[in-house]
């Protein structure tokens, strides 16, 4: 038998190796290649965050400051005019950023904490915990969120805290479903079994094996859930059962000034006033959707045909 010819060496096998770039470098690269929609989205989001953070510095007047001039048209004193009680709409718009967006962020974070941890627990213990949680979530999701929220708010009253808790719990059901399905895909991997065989504890497995591998879809979902929560809270406020006056909130501002719309044919700008808070809501949601869309495209590695 001839001596086998050495054409093989483990080190020189062809691989996908490329120089790993630092996080900062990768962010710069991604930014350069991003589509205009995503860039637009990021700019808008940053703008909103800044306005929300620096609201007291930016607003010319107070949030609930009343002037003896109701329904003033747009002018140099009151940029967007005043509302039905005589409060400056421009200032309330700025404070609205802080309130509406802030409450929406808090609610989304809470829903992720609840839904995410329960989803992980259900994925890891596939027997009792999973069955109980999944069935309960199925039942909770059988009632449309808005309706359920209306029922609960009618009982407990519409305080900011109630709003945050109720919406967070209702939304946590969706987060639960997603986290569970994504985590289950990871839990069945051999490397999780290898960790189990070693005798690693549950928290180690969750932290080091599962969590890093489910982050991309969770981050995308955070964006989407934020949009949903944001729109729901705005809708509830618009209906009058969400954030209550005198807190400045975009949803209720639309309702308060809705009848100005009829005057559009006489004074267009006054007619536009109720649309301003609504447009503010729409703009942020569009921006977040654009960014999430781009993020999903990048992380799923989908190849569109050339």
């Amino acid at each position, binding site marked *: 038998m001839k001596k086998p010819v050495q054409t093989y060496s483990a080190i020189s096998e062809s691989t996908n190796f490329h120089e790993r770039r630092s996080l900062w470098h990768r962010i710069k690269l991604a930014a350069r290649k991003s589509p205009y*929609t995503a860039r637009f989205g990021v700019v808008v989001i940053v703008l909103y965050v800044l306005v929300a953070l620096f609201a007291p510095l930016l607003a010319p007047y107070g949030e609930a400051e009343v002037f003896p001039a109701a329904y003033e048209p747009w002018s140099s004193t009151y940029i967007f005019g005043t509302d039905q009680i005589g409060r400056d709409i421009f200032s309330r718009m700025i404070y609205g950023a802080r309130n509406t967006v802030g409450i929406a962020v808090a609610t989304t974070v809470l829903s992720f904490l609840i839904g995410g941890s329960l989803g992980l627990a259900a994925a890891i213990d596939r027997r009792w915990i999973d069955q109980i949680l999944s069935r309960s979530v*199925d*039942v*909770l999701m*059988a*009632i*449309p*969120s*808005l*309706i*359920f929220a*209306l*029922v*609960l*708010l*009618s*009982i*407990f009253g519409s305080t900011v805290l109630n709003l945050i808790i109720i919406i967070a719990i209702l939304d946590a059901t969706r987060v639960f479903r997603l986290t569970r399905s994504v985590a289950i895909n990871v839990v069945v991997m051999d490397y999780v079994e290898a960790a189990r065989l070693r005798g690693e504890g549950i928290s180690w497995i969750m932290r080091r094996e599962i969590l890093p591998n489910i982050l991309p879809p969770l981050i995308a979902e955070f964006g989407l859930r934020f*949009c949903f929560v944001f*729109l729901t809270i*705005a*809708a509830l406020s*618009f*209906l*009058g*059962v969400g954030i209550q006056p005198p807190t400045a909130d975009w*949803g209720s501002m*639309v309702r308060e000034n*809705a009848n100005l*719309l*009829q*005057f*559009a*044919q006489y004074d*267009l700008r006054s*007619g*536009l006033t*109720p*649309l301003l808070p*609504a*447009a503010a*809501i*729409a703009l942020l*949601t*569009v921006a*977040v*959707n*654009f960014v999430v*869309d781009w993020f999903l495209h990048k992380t799923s590695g989908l190849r*569109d*045909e050339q």
Partner: protein
Amino acid sequence: MHPVLGTVLQRLGLGLLTLIAVSIIIFTSIEMLPGDFGQVVLGQAATKDTVAAFRLELGLDKPPHLRYFDWIIGVFQGDLGTSFSGRAASGQDRSREVADLIGPRLQNTLFLGGITALISVPLALALGITTALYRNSIYDRSVNAATLTTISFPEFFVAYILILFLSSLTQWLPSLANVDSDTPLAERLHRIVLPVLTLTLVIIAHMMRMTRAAIINLLASPYIQMARLSGASQTEIIIKHALPNAWAPIATVIAFNLAYLVVGVVVVEVVFVYPGIGQLMVDAVTTRDIPVVQGCALIFAVTYILLNLIADVIGIITNPRLLHPK
């Protein structure tokens, strides 16, 4: 027994269980009212006796599970309780049956929803399928951008923009959709053009995107590539190969969006002051008229569950693995 039948019955049973669980939740919610709500409803001037009589009428002296059964049996008989509004501290009771309140409102909402569904479903399916087929063309990209923006808008925003351009500025259409039982059909349709348009725009955006995603997913299946390689034309691939496997995902998309319609209707009714069940519920929530809230919530939940059930059943009866078992 044929597996399809078995699976369908199983699914129906599950639906029934869910309905029961949901009704328990809705019922239990009233349990969580603070103890003195009787006082709140009747007003500060109500005497202790009046409040006690009120509580007796509501059966609050009986244990919860008995009350639940009373309520459920009442529901099946069409009795959803009596509204809280119209009750005075004096004990005078001008309250109305919840069922009487809901009845006509439900009809109106179904009318609105029905017209919307009739228009939006075919349109959304057509858009979704064509954009999936001509993926990444200018047509697809522009429709995608347009719908991505539309789904980000709150319904009231879309509604008010339409009102601005089609009503306030141009006076073409009425901005209030107040109809009642006497309004003739033609007038009704005229009044609801704007609400229907609003709902249609919102629903189409969602439905079209989901349909597109489902079809693209389907077109990526290996048997589609195989069909291409055996010489099938694009049309044949869509109709003969993709479509038979598309019923389940499309049914799910439609059901999901019709359920979404059920919710979207609430905001639209409020904006256009349309006398539907959505507006009734919102008013009841504002006045904390619990029986009405309960009744409306129950109806919404039933509709939602029913729609999902239909989608599941369609998915089951079109599944070739269940239709032709080993």
